[in-house]
């Protein structure tokens, strides 16, 4: 346990001391929150378009922010693997499970902090825009996002394990772009219909966003739990793949 705590602490500090992580993990999502709130103000009421209303936007922005946690997880793992730091740790009695827990625990913790900050900012915006939002429901949205956090951290682990320091951020950028689009953060995926909605439904991002949005308005319906279930299955699947990939890469590194 000591090994996991020590390694987790190191990974946590590595990220919170990286100025870029604030720009991407917090700055960018919060700017998007502000920009989209302004966009919402410009939409005439007769358009009946509520996608950018704060209570809808908050959950989407939270998932958008989590995608940057994926990016920094990938960067941390890939950077460690490309340098000699992991070589040093491989000569200690640390096992693959210690490494995996040491990477995943602080990243999920960072994701929780990021979500809390995003929802606090959203609550402040909701007061300004006179949109009714319940802080307790927002807190439940943080809980509803836990499977999404595990999903994004696992994606990050997987990309950081398979790809190097140069290629993993590029791949993560593709996932961020695709995930935010196909997650229905910036458009109404249900209204789009057809193949596009089918693609959105087939991927986890849309379900993550929907679960957060429904939690934000306290709609703990069957639909909410189905979105949570789908996201959880994806999270478990990607977590298993990333753990397997990391263990196999570690074994290959030590061969």
């Amino acid at each position, binding site marked *: 346990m000591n090994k996991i705590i020590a390694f987790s602490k190191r990974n946590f500090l590595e990220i919170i001391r990286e100025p870029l992580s604030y720009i991407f993990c917090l700055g960018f999502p919060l700017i998007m929150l502000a920009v989209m709130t302004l966009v919402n103000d410009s939409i005439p009421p007769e358009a009946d378009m509520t996608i950018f209303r704060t209570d809808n936007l908050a959950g989407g922005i939270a998932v958008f922010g989590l995608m940057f946690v994926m990016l920094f997880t990938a960067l941390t793992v890939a950077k460690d693997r490309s340098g000699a*730091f992991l070589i040093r740790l491989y*000569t200690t009695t640390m096992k693959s499970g210690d490494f995996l827990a040491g990477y995943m625990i602080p990243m999920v913790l960072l994701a929780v902090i990021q979500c809390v900050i995003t929802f606090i900012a959203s609550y402040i915006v909701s007061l300004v825009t006179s949109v009714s939002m319940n802080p307790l429901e927002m807190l439940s949205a943080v809980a509803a996002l836990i499977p999404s956090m595990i999903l994004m951290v696992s994606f990050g682990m997987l990309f950081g394990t398979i790809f190097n320091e140069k290629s993993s951020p590029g791949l993560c950028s593709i996932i961020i772009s695709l995930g935010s689009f196909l997650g229905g953060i910036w458009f109404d995926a249900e209204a789009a219909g057809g193949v596009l909605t089918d693609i959105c439904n087939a991927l986890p991002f849309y379900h993550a966003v929907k679960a957060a949005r429904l939690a934000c308005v306290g709609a703990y319906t069957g639909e909410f739990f189905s979105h949570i279930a789908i996201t959880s299955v994806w999270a478990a699947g990607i977590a298993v793949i990333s753990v397997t990939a990391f263990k196999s890469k570690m074994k290959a590194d030590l061969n």
Partner: protein
Amino acid sequence: MYAIETKRLTKRYKSKIAVDGLDLTANEGELFALLGVNGAGKTTTLRMLCCLSKPTSGECFVCGKNCAKEPAAVKKIVDISPQDTSVADNLTVIENLRLICGICGYSYEKTKEKTEEMIRIFNLNEVRNTRSKTLSGGWKRKLSIAMSLISEPKVLFLDEPTLGLDVLARRDLWGVVESLKGKITIVLTTHYMEEAERLADRIAIMIDGHIAAIGTLSELERLSGKSGLEESFVKIAENHGKKAAK
């Protein structure tokens, strides 16, 4: 019992043989240098001795423990300061030392004791709260070696510890390594002749994965008929090349 022993140790990567039937021993408390040009197999040998790589054939032992069969036991008694900088960049010097203490499972008291001990031995006090990424190459190497000593290893592997350092930083680091002599077994890889000449009790010259010669400096000089390690190294390398050509 030897601190280090290899028996016909071989490492093959596809068609390339990095280490070829290596037989060597190092005694407890000895500072043993593996000298050779790039690609001679020095780092690969170290990797096998640290359980970072498995031998293709042959065996290697650290304090009598088989590296391939008892890696957990070996890892408890060895540590390495790798060739590249192996410190956590965004952590301060003291945080890096504490990180290794945490991984070793030390108590709060022992962590405090060990970090202060390393700071004193390596004169790290003036940079103790400096983030590693802003340290000069010399400071980073000192920190890297300090981190490798935290676990109180019986055998310490230093892989080209002064590579890329300026002359002052190199001499400073030599002083540190000299202060460790006799206390633990140190296996040092280098391609700096003067480094091996100054620090090592015994020197093995590695060429193309083989040990071309092994012994004290005077033994190598006698063997080559030349004076000084550099001249001896060149002569031994030439003779080895001629033998290989035949």
